């Protein structure tokens, strides 16, 4: 493979992936007619995708439905009081977290992928570790360390002889700045993971061409590698921002009054679920607008790889100074986002081990694994189905439904839980009424308040993560591959199985791990929708963490982290191996 770049064929002369490729889906040829009126297996894909997308979108629709029935109109009051503050705080938080995750995620992905660094193999997976720690736990741990009674300030007081908080100034972590730091540290792995996968799958030829044509290393990164990875990076940043919007634990703990705080004030304080739903939908509209603008800005670009030639990545040699910088870029986020919180949790776990290591603990862990595992299967399965159906039939209506089904991520989990509650309860009660009328038997609530409802809620919540990764991966497969397979007689299913699955394995794995780890951390929807006497590790930790007694549940929190770490490592291995042309040994 060493000389792959030296014998370019015509297609390689153009920058590899940004060309306007021929897209048969859009061709006005006679084949289009067949696509709009599918028969046989194709019909299953189209109709199935509509059903799946509609089911996943149902909770969003239910939230919209609640929004029509506010107990009073909240807007005049909000507009004249808190709304400007909510908007300002939300804007600052999103901007801060957006910049934070992009800087940390992209820079670490680049140096880990492209540069020769000591411990490179370690950083490849370790950069993902902070993802396994729930943000509100990181928030708690840092408050514990940095607050007045914490070890750091205590040490400073001992050294300088200060008597009380009035004697000195110390930065307060319970601020917008603190929230931005904590959320950036726990959310950057989404950007890192997707950016790294993108860098890995780029043909190095494009970058080397840029270098040969006189670009500096820095400039070729900015003008070639970064734009090529843009769709993946954007997906990562959007996920991080949606997660920022739906976060309530951290902002509540840090007393940052964002729109999400407003939702809960209106809902729980004023008892106005309809008004709360209206704010949630307004937030959604903003998210959708951002996504549309981003897509519009690259509407004429296609990002398929047009060459299948890959060689080993170069492993740039860095100057000592640059190497120190690169190492700092990798080490700091891991230490701050993972090592410190884990050490604190380990310390507490040891202190309270006897209280925590009980039979209940295993039950909670089992429940967490069960729900997260099932949700992963459902969310990834549905995402593959919808993404592939959309590839087969790029219809505007289907596209709309699919997009709608993946915006649930930006809605606070508790609000989405109400959205899940409504269709399930409606179905159960309708069935019950029917059975009572016809057979005189009550079926009660069959689905509401079951593990099934919980799994469904998780799948809906995390569909954006799952769908985003799979769509990004599938988008990289040239449509000509599909055409070739179909021309050679393969069915849509056969094409998916034999062509796409092997090619997007990395994306599917990424989606699975993201959903699983998010599931282990899921709290608000679990609290509202779970069956009786049913605790997951997250709900168990929460009932103590809420009153700042996390010591009592540190073992549970640590387990959430550890269980999340294993798939994260597996995933990173898989991403490394997913590089086309990978020899399996680098």
């Amino acid at each position: 493979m060493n000389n792959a770049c030296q014998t370019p064929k015509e297609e390689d002369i153009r920058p590899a992936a940004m060309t306007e490729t021929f897209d048969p889906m859009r061709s006005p040829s006679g084949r289009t007619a067949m696509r709009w009126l599918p028969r046989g297996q194709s019909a299953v894909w189209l109709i199935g995708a509509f059903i799946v997308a509609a089911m996943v979108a149902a909770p969003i629709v239910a939230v919209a439905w609640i929004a029509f029935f506010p107990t009073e109109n909240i807007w005049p009051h909000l507009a004249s009081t808190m709304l400007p503050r909510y908007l300002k705080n939300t804007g600052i938080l999103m901007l801060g977290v957006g910049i934070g995750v992009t800087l940390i995620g992209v820079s670490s992905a680049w140096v880990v992928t492209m540069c020769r660094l000591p411990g490179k193999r370690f950083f490849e997976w370790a950069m993902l570790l902070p993802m396994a720690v729930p943000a509100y736990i990181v928030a708690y741990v840092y408050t514990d360390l940095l607050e007045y009674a914490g070890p750091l300030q205590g040490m400073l007081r001992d050294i300088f002889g200060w008597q009380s908080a009035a004697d000195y100034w110390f930065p307060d972590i319970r601020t917008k700045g603190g929230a931005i730091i904590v959320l950036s540290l726990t959310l950057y792995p989404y950007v890192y993971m997707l950016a790294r996968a993108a860098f890995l799958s780029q043909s190095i030829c494009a970058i080397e061409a840029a270098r040969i044509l006189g670009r500096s290393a820095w400039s070729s990164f900015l003008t070639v590698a970064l734009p090529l990875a843009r769709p993946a990076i954007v997906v990562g940043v959007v996920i991080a921002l949606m997660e920022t919007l739906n976060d309530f634990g951290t902002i509540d703990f840090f007393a940052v009054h964002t729109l999400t705080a407003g939702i809960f004030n209106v809902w729980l304080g004023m008892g106005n679920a309809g008004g709360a739903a209206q704010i949630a939908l307004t937030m959604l509209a903003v998210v959708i607008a951002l996504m549309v603008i981003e897509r519009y800005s690259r509407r004429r670009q296609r990002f398929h790889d047009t060459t299948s030639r890959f060689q080993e990545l170069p492993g740039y040699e860095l100057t000592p100074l640059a190497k120190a910088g690169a190492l700092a870029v990798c080490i700091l986020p891991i230490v701050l986002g993972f090592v410190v919180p884990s050490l604190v949790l380990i310390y507490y776990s040891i202190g309270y081990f006897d209280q925590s290591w009980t039979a209940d603990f295993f039950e909670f862990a089992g429940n967490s694994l069960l729900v997260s595992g099932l949700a992963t299967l459902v969310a990834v399965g549905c995402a593959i189905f919808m993404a592939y159906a959309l590839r087969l039939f790029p219809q505007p209506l289907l596209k709309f439904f699919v997009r709608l089904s993946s915006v649930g991520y930006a809605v606070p989990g508790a609000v989405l839980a109400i959205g899940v509650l409504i269709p399930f309860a409606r179905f159960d009660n309708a069935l019950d009424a029917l059975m009572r009328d016809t057979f005189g038997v009550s079926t009660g609530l069959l689905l509401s308040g079951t593990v099934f409802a919980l799994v469904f809620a998780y799948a809906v919540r995390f569909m954006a993560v799952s769908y985003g990764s799979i769509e990004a991966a599938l988008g990289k497969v040239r449509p000509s591959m599909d055409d070739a397979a179909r021309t050679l007689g393969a069915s849509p299913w056969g094409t998916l199985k034999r062509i796409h699955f092997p090619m997007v394995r990395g994306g599917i794995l990424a989606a699975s791990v993201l959903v699983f780890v998010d599931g282990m951390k899921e709290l608000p929807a679990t609290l509202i929708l779970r069956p009786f006497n049913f605790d997951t590790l997250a709900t168990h930790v929460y009932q103590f963490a809420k009153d700042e007694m996390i010591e009592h549940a540190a073992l549970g929190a640590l387990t959430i982290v550890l269980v999340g770490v294993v798939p994260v490592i597996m995933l990173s291995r898989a991403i490394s191996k997913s590089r086309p042309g990978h020899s399996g040994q680098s």
Partner: protein
Amino acid sequence: MISLRKTVFGLVVSAMGLSTLSAAHAAEEVNVYSLRQPFLIEPMFKRFTEETGIRVNTLFSQSGLVERIKHEGRNTPADLLLTVDIGRIQDAVDADIAQPIESPVLDANIPDQFRDENKLWVGMTTRARVLYTSLDRVEPDAITTYEELADPKWKGRICVRSAMHVYNIALIASMIAHHGEEETKTWLTAVKDNLARKPQGADTDQIEAVAQGVCDVAIGNSYYYGKMLDDPNKADAAKQVRIVFPNQGDRGTHVNISGVALMKHAPNKENAIKLVEFLSSAEAQHMYADINFEYPVKPGVAWSEQVRAWGTFVHDDLPLNTVAANRGAAIRLIDEVGFNE
């Protein structure tokens, strides 16, 4: 059986034999949706099960339970809803998911002030919203009323959790009931100007902040103080403050309840009433007092030793329904004043 039905396999089971469903209610049980953390109430439930053989199923969440019961409709498994304040229980009444509890036992055990006149809710315990002042920096009688929190001499010296928390909403609602909206708004603005820091944390944090010198006066519920004194890690901080019951010279200290409501479609109504009656009994009331440092609602039940040491106090007789009715006005004022920013 009911737990079996509550699984993924419920569909299969019921399809195979609908007749088995009638057996689902054979086991004696009662289902509780709770806004209170489970570990605070489980000791009482455990005792109840020991004495009656009735199993208590619990579901804890701080939000969404009223909506869940409302949408589950006539098939809801919920028998009882447990809350930590009057506001949330009023939400349940407003959502029309409660039914009156008819029980001579409750009528005898619980004073009128802590029961709804339509019997749609009953209080189980009371908690006083008190002031905590620094032993070192504040004279014992320097502050004796809620009104004095507005005095400019406290500028930069007061700590409180978010005003949007139900405990503060109820306190502000009671101020509105006594002084009217106008005057309360002036008071609230002045209190905001006196804050040492942006409202944050829980009640315990405010007591710790006084101990640390961040502020001199904190507002908090009474039982948190008891819990801190009981916790070796927090007792030192608690020992640096004194507890002050405000307004002893006039209307008395504002109290709130932890309460319970019987659900309209409760499938185990009899067991539910038995549980509420048990919770109002001397035995359970004593446990509440002893474990959680709350005040029993049943007259004559001994307080915990700790709580007794704080002394007796006069509580505000304002009907809790009036407090609940003023919540909307309180929230409006909080937003208008921008208290939490």
